[in-house]
């Protein structure tokens, strides 16, 4: 794809040095137009399927079997979504998904944020070894580890509980949390913390009163992302549970036997919170992932 254009916006097309009839300027405008076209096409690729599943979820069940389907729904109704929410086991599974994601968020933050702080603030022996260890977890398909973990959980007597799923999801999220929080703490100026110490704060006091308020928005964005990670995870959830299914595990296990409207409403239910979440943390996305990549 050659529709690339960079750094031009700073230079107005009609600046004296670059008159309109200049072939270079014309080519630049063409490239820019193509870039807009690419932006629109790529956006349609992302948005159209989301629109379609939303339409399907809010079409009455009888109409959803119509063919061909109207692109703009004639009747909008929450009947299909209500049918899904009223199906056996859906609401408890929804609740368990929320509990698992919340537990994962709390556990991974409690375990990961201190490590992130240590990486950001201290020079100590073994620091690079620890950093390498955290980075290398990325080379492993952590989700697959739920099979041996299931065997372990059976012997421990915590198989098929919401806790066991949260424990697995925490292992999944923890390396991510450590890397993110460390980069967030790095971005809080050390001088501010040292000033607080000089003015008589204890290390803990300086952390709570100075570092934490400054780091809070970034930490919140990271925590929200951890929540989504757990909310979406299905392989570990379906391996580690039998009756205490989370929402994705319930939907997956019932996939081949459930009617189509049930599946479509389920997809919409799983997808909708993510759209809101990505909107809330949109300003932090680049920071979050850019730092992970470094």
């Amino acid at each position, binding site marked *: 794809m*050659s529709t*690339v*254009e*960079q*750094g031009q916006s700073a230079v107005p097309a009609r600046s004296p040095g670059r008159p309109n009839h200049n072939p270079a300027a014309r080519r630049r405008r063409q*490239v820019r137009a193509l870039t807009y076209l690419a*932006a629109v096409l*790529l*956006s349609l690729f*992302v948005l159209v399927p989301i629109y379609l*599943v939303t339409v*399907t979820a809010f079409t009455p069940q009888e109409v959803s*079997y119509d*063919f*061909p*389907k109207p692109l703009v729904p004639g009747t909008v109704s929450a009947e299909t979504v209500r049918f899904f929410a009223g199906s056996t086991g859906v609401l408890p599974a929804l609740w368990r998904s929320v509990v698992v994601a919340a537990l994962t968020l709390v556990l991974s933050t*409690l*375990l*990961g944020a*201190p*490590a992130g*702080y*240590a990486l950001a*603030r*201290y020079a*100590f*022996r*073994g620091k690079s*070894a620890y950093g390498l260890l955290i980075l290398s977890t*990325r*080379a492993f*398909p952590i989700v*697959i*580890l739920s099979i*041996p973990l299931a*065997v*372990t959980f059976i012997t421990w007597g915590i198989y098929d509980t919401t806790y066991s799923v949260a424990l*697995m999801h*925490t*292992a999944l999220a*923890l390396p991510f949390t450590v890397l993110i929080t460390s980069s967030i703490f790095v971005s809080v100026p050390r001088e501010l913390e040292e000033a607080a110490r000089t003015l008589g704060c204890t290390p803990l006091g300086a952390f709570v009163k100075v570092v934490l308020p400054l780091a809070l928005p970034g930490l919140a964005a990271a925590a929200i992302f951890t929540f*989504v990670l757990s909310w*979406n*995870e*299905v*392989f570990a959830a*379906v*391996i580690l549970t039998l009756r205490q299914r989370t929402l994705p595990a319930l939907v*997956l296990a019932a996939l081949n036997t459930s009617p189509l409207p049930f*599946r479509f409403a389920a*997809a919409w239910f*799983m*997808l909708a*919170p993510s759209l809101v979440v990505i909107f809330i943390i949109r300003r932090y*996305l680049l*920071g979050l*992932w850019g*730092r992970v*990549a*470094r």
Partner: protein
Amino acid sequence: MASAPAVAAKGDTRRRLGWAPYALLAPSLVYLAVFFALPMVNAFGLAFQSEAGGYSLEPVRRMLGDGRFGDALRTTLLLVVIIVPIQFAVAMSMALVVNARLRGTDLWLYIFALPLGISELAAGIVWFSIFTEQGWLNSFLTQLGVLDRPFIFLNYQRPVLLILTIVVAEAWRATSIIMVILVAGLQGIPRDYLEAADVFGATPWQRVRHVILPLLRPSIRVALILRTILAFQVFATVIALAGSATNVLAGEAYRWYQNLRDARVAAAYATLILILSVASTVLFLLLLPTEEDRSA
């Protein structure tokens, strides 16, 4: 793994609180030891365990001898080989569009990043609603007069078509993660380099090929490694779109654990995915050395 506590004993005399960083790291280390390192060792243990608990190649042999093994391995590798380059191309296009600073950059970034929060399962069902017999694609094509009657895209007798639908669904769902990493990398490239390329009359393509791609190499490497590992675990998208008509490695691990109640063969599959993932990481590290690696 245990190097940090071992070093802790020696201490760090420069700081009064020399033990503090180790105390802060300890919880995460212990947790990863129990829920990451231990299961990994256990996966190998289970994969080479006899019914009685002794050492045996039986689970591995059962995996290799299973009728669906070859198909699952082939399909998974094929999916990885097709999905990763396509996603890289789409993600690179998205990243360049975002970095072009069009009007509404934040909006484009938000739209491209939307699938970041969408699960494998939800994405699979979304594309199922498009590709199924009475689905949206057939609906469009009949309304446009391209088709007389619905075409069965998701037909177990057309495995190639099934794989293509999975590729589209995965490209839709998991491109955003690569895009975000690439955008973050692009923003780290000094504007001077790009302006210099401009001054010397580089075409947009030359600029991408000779300035952006080389400078973006570390981000590209991380993105490719992350994405490839996730592609080896492809699971729910396949089940949602193809049911049991298409076999993949993670799906077989699930089937052996859940339906056939044999955790040992399931662990053999898990171990295989583990080995493939680590091998692909090493391959990427060797194929795409960064300047740091070269000078080291």
